[in-house]
């Protein structure tokens, strides 16, 4: 029991420190406002750091969304970027002057609906598949949706869509994205502690056992898929107006697709704060790796290496690593290695 207690107190300590850090980081950008200037407060954060923070918040939404399907329900989807793209295009079409010409708020509100509907529709056949078949079918769906979008003129065809540009709105988009991130974490937290959450975890642990105790596995899986789609679509919607440009490569990028998965897994799939931690660690690594000039190629090789290291050494994620003192020991590491080798 001793290890568990330490682990418990260690965990709470970490969470408090983590929470404080997040609050501080979120308040710092306020120093960049005119009001702060008039109060003589020093500007702590510059434009590029705000941009990085907004990206971090965006990935928290996507990683938490993926976590509902991949982490909680155990269905490792390889195509959630489709929801991001659909959300982005929905919002872009909604606010486009030549199309629906709706205010930005309406665009962002619509962004989660189309992907959620699409997820429910596509989810029924897809979620009957398992393992490799499910992963590749979702990857295929994401690629196919991207291709369809590229070939439809109403959706801007190959050139893409251009939502109206908002000047000096960095802080607006930062706090919009942070709001979405908080929503994602809160929704995940609520689900985790509910009948719906326990049902999803039961499906992950053993779907047949879950069905014979009365879990409607199809409905629960499609539900998780749709919630993940809505959250990811919301991030896409905000991204479209923030970036004021969206096309197939940006909306359906395989980079985003793999990064949201790696962040959730690296942080700790199936946990509440795992994905958030994973986003921060990975974004920190990627920013520094790519920071060295335009050599994005080395960043990609770094990402590839990180994927391999995570899968082999930290399969259950960083959060689990601090779960209990025993986890930190080398013996645990060696056993993990021995188990996965042939």
């Amino acid at each position: 029991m001793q290890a568990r207690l330490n682990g418990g107190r260690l965990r709470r300590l970490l969470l408090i420190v983590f929470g404080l850090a997040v609050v501080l980081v979120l308040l710092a950008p306020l120093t960049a406002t005119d009001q702060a200037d008039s109060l003589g407060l020093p500007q702590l954060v510059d434009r590029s750091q705000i941009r990085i923070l907004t990206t971090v918040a965006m990935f928290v939404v996507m990683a938490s969304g993926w976590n509902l399907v991949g982490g909680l329900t155990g269905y490792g989807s390889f195509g959630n970027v489709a929801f991001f793209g659909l959300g982005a295009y929905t919002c872009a079409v909604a606010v486009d002057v030549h199309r629906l010409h709706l205010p930005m708020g309406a665009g962002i509100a619509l962004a989660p609906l189309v992907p959620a509907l699409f997820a429910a529709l596509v989810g029924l056949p897809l979620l009957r598949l398992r393992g490799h078949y499910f992963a590749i079918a979702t990857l295929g769906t994401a690629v196919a949706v991207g291709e369809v979008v590229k070939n439809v003129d109403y959706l801007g065809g190959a050139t893409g869509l251009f939502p109206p540009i908002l000047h000096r709105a960095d802080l607006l988009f930062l706090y919009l994205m942070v709001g979405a991130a908080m929503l994602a974490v809160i929704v995940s937290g609520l689900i985790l502690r509910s009948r719906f959450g326990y049902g999803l975890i039961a499906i992950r642990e053993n779907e047949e056992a879950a069905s014979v105790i009365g879990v409607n596995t199809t409905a629960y899986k499609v539900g998780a898929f749709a919630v993940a789609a809505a959250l990811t679509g919301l991030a896409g919607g905000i991204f479209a107006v923030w970036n004021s440009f969206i096309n197939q490569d940006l909306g359906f990028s395989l980079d985003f697709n793999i990064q949201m998965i790696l962040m959730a897994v690296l942080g700790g799939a199936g946990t509440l704060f795992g994905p958030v931690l994973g986003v921060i660690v990975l974004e920190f690594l990627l920013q520094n790796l790519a920071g060295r000039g335009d050599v994005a190629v080395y960043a990609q090789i770094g990402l590839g290496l990180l994927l391999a290291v995570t899968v082999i050494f930290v399969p259950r994620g960083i959060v689990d690593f601090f779960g209990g003192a025993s986890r930190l020991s080398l013996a645990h590491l060696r056993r993990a290695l021995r188990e996965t080798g042939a």
Partner: protein
Amino acid sequence: MQLFLQQVVLGLLIGGIYVAVALGFSLVWGILNIVNLAHGALVIAGAYLTWLLFAHAHVDPFLSLPIVAVALFAFGYALQRVLINRVIRAPLFFTLLLTFGVNLMIVNALLVLFKSDFRSVTPSYSGSGFGVAGVQVPYVRLAALGVAAALAAAVGWLLNRTRTGSAIQAVAADRDAARLVGVDLRHVYALTFAVAAACAGVAGGLISTIQAITPTAGEPYTLQAFVVVVLGGLGRVGATVVGGLVFGLVETLGQTMVPGLGAGWANAIAFALLVVVLVVRPQGLMGRRP
């Protein structure tokens, strides 16, 4: 009618390429139960090796195929032993993440070595072909189909006619029972992955003769290999051959015969086909229930 016949021929010829690409992919998935997301990268690595031998050493692409095969065999054996073997017993999802990581490393290593501008292998005969009843048949593509058929026959012979092949099939049927008759699992896994990498290399060599290549050109080939294997059904070489040819036909005819679908729809067709096959007949045209 002329156009249709021409498209059927072109469909079969490109189908040969898909067979060559899918052979290795099917082996790794069928035997090691790993979907290798780096397969396309291995194919393109083979293509670049062929280009290197052609551009710098003036070796004819079809003659360099054995060299490419040996090189990729060695690389595949080492890659499996060092990395892939670590996740053999891990949950499926982690094998996907690992092979995607390997894919990123290979593609970007190629980018560092060869930059991203297009390369192509154009031997003297690459443009010519012959006409039969009004249908044009380019030599290079016909030769590629021939090599693909030979490759399929070779893999079939290895699996069904050799001692190593029966060991590989034994491992696929029951891993522990295979160990109980004395099969060294690590060696057989690495050997299987090496043969698959060699097939990918040969497929890459063929591809370099019919299209320009860049380091990132591998991605679609991985996904298409998956569709071909699912279409044909996992398990037997014959199933992959059928899957590859049918896929070649559906893709080519889909792009030219169906109104409104142009060249840009290749991937969309592929994945519509995939989702339909997965839901309607998951074990594929020729295979057994997975």
